[in-house]
């Protein structure tokens, strides 16, 4: 009989970390289907790697799941029509980061899916595909990392030559305050996620998988523990609540006590990490032949009428989600795509939801303003908070002084931009802003 998850000691990462208020306001809101928008705008780059190549023309009629942009090379991803209808204008639009990218507009008509897609809720447990077939299917379905990074998933499940993976870690941490998309998905689709884990294990050729979930999601830990009682290969690891535990490097340290050497990948220490949302998308891609055309998005904020978790078609304008959650609160000063620690403030509410959009957060004007800045008092709190063991206060000074060479020697490129230093600074210094500046300059040094 295996150990119950609750009997296990809580684990966490060793360096740094902060404890922002949880504010998981939407934790009890069940997943709900967002009504279809009138039009969707789908950027052809929603991933790390080469942009996809548009293969449709204005005026074409498309079905849900049809490829509208084809991947270019291995590190790239297919883009599918998330709604049926007619292709409208294909032009550059602004994404949540403020960059302009080519995007395909679809005037939505009906909800007509490709016949090859299994849209039923029936759980398909038996995995019939081989390793290579799984990689091909995931690639075809355009699945990318849904935790935010957007790295093409097929590239992560094809084990590189000469490397051995011994453990698959499933990231169910969701350490960003407010966000509950992964939490709800775990509660409502646990068996699908577990099949997804088995698919990944087969593709990677590993016999051990660990699902890391933070202790503020007791119900999810319990649920997975229950479904995995008889499973000898997959276990649940409860984790202490601490930001940024969902960072790949931090999660690997927390779960396995391994460190990914600077500049290397988790595969170099025998680990691959996938997010639960991605795992679910991989299940759908492989077992249901369904491409990544929708995802769960949390819509939340302290003044939001109905904090919600929606199934949203990719390309839906953010304003539609906000309207469905009760409208933009009067107090709103900032709208963030993603969580409050790493998310991006958006200027325009027409920005489309992308594969990596985990949440829409509305922050009140009063909380938006940055407080008065004081001199650095060398309290060391940023060092205490940094999960990479850097000295953020020093990196800020070096950045201000334009000392790129020195910044590089102080390992500025190891920074994962989690924001813990800026969050914790009692002098309200914009530490991460300066570190980002410095990173850009240091990258140009090479």
């Amino acid at each position, binding site marked *: 009989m295996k150990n119950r998850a609750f009997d296990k000691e809580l684990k966490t990462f060793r360096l740094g970390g902060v404890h*922002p208020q949880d504010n998981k306001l939407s934790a009890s809101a069940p997943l709900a289907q967002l009504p279809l928008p009138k039009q969707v705008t789908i950027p052809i780059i929603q991933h790390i790697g080469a942009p996809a190549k548009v293969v449709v023309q204005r005026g074409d009629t498309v079905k849900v799941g049809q490829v509208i942009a084809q991947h270019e090379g291995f590190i790239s991803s297919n883009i599918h029509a998330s709604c049926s209808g007619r292709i409208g204008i294909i032009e550059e639009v602004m994404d949540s980061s403020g960059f302009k990218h080519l995007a395909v507009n679809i005037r939505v008509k009906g909800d007509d899916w490709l016949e090859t897609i299994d849209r039923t809720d029936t759980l398909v447990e038996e995995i019939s595909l081989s390793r290579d077939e799984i990689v091909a299917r995931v690639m075809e379905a355009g699945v990318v990392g849904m935790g935010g990074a957007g790295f093409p998933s097929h590239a992560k499940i094809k084990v590189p030559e000469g490397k051995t993976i011994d453990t698959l870690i499933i990231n169910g941490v969701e350490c960003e305050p407010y966000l509950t998309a992964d939490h709800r998905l775990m509660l409502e689709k646990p068996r699908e996620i577990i099949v997804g884990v088995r698919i990944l294990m087969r593709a990677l050729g590993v016999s051990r998988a660990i699902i890391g979930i933070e202790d503020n999601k007791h119900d999810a830990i319990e649920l997975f523990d229950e479904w995995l009682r008889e499973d000898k290969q997959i276990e649940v690891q409860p984790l202490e609540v601490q930001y940024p535990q969902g960072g790949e490097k931090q999660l690997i340290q927390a779960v396995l006590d391994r460190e990914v050497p600077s500049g290397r990948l988790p595969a170099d220490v025998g680990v691959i990490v996938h997010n639960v949302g991605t795992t679910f998308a991989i299940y759908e891609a492989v077992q249901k032949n369904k491409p990544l055309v929708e995802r769960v998005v949390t819509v939340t904020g302290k003044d939001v009428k109905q904090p919600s978790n929606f199934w949203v078609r990719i390309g839906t304008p953010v304003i539609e989600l906000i309207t469905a959650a009760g409208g933009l609160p009067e107090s709103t000063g900032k709208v963030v795509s993603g969580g409050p620690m790493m998310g991006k403030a958006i200027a325009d509410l027409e920005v489309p939801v992308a594969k990596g959009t985990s949440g829409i957060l509305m922050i009140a004007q009063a909380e938006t303003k*940055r407080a008065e800045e*004081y001199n650095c008092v060398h309290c060391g709190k940023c060092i205490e908070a940094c999960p990479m063991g850097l000295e953020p206060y020093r990196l800020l000074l070096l950045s201000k002084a334009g000392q790129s060479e020195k910044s590089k020697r102080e390992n500025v490129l*190891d920074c994962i931009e989690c924001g813990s230093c800026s*969050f914790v600074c009692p002098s309200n210094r914009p530490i*991460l802003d300066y570190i980002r500046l410095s990173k850009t300059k240091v990258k140009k040094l090479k």
Partner: protein
Amino acid sequence: MSQSLLTVAPSPHIHTELTIPQVMRGVIIAMVPALLVSVYNFGLGAVYVTGLSILFCAGAEWAICKFLLKREPTITDGSAVITGMLLAFNVPSNLPWYIILIGSLVSVGIGKMSFGGLGNNPFNPALVGRVFLLLSFPVEMTSWPQAVATWSLDGTTGATPLGILKDGLRAGETVPALMQQMPSYTDFFFGFQGGSLGEMSAFALLIGLGYMLYRKIITWHIPVTMIATVFVMTGIFWFIDPTRFASPLFHVLTGGVMLGAIFMATDYVTSPVSHKGMIVFAIGCGVLTVLIRLFGAYPEGVSFAILIMNAFVPLINTYLKPVRYGRKK
């Protein structure tokens, strides 16, 4: 609310509640128990000295900003109030007002503002002022009112336990004999002893430490390490020859070890930034304190020890880096 008015700024979009004014307020609250004990022991003298010191320090900072530096006064951050309180904690409770004024001017003017104000001073401002006064007014600075609750401004004065010890040993007496003349350890712990205004009660200072740890204003590294270092080192000497050296408990409970370890050495600005650095710094403070107490000319060495270690902080910060992730050799 019009869309075009949305704020766009880089992440993170939330911030901790613990900002500089909150931190300073927390430190001030943490000093209150010690101040109360002092008022109980010394009566109005404690209130008078502390009040004047705060007033002079804050006033000095205000005036320097306003008239010399011509910039917005920074006293609202609360750091001048702390400097004032700490300076008062480090002097006898019957100090005349003009000495307090000089001390405040030196603390804030030379110790802090001449380097650019909050965050830039290499030495603890209150200690700079205190040591300046000790060297300039040796008589006034070492005439310690005795801890008898009195509500008049002139009480009797006498030596501190450390002073009695130092003078007695010089006169050829033994430690056990000298201990007969002193209050019990319980009295030391609760603060019924002579000494600087805020340093007497280990109990009250420890309450302050607990509060600051609870509010996550400071970490345990400096106070615990420094007190432990003093305890262990004096313990070794005591073990070798208990007739010549006082017990470790005596050394930890008397003089400024508690005050220094909890409130002076933990000053953000003048202590190292990494945990490793903090431990090295605190060991240094402890060792120097003990060396001065046991072998130096002064009966007490906490202020000098911390000031000397302050000078090493930039070096410590440069050479003792935090453990980096993923860069094991």
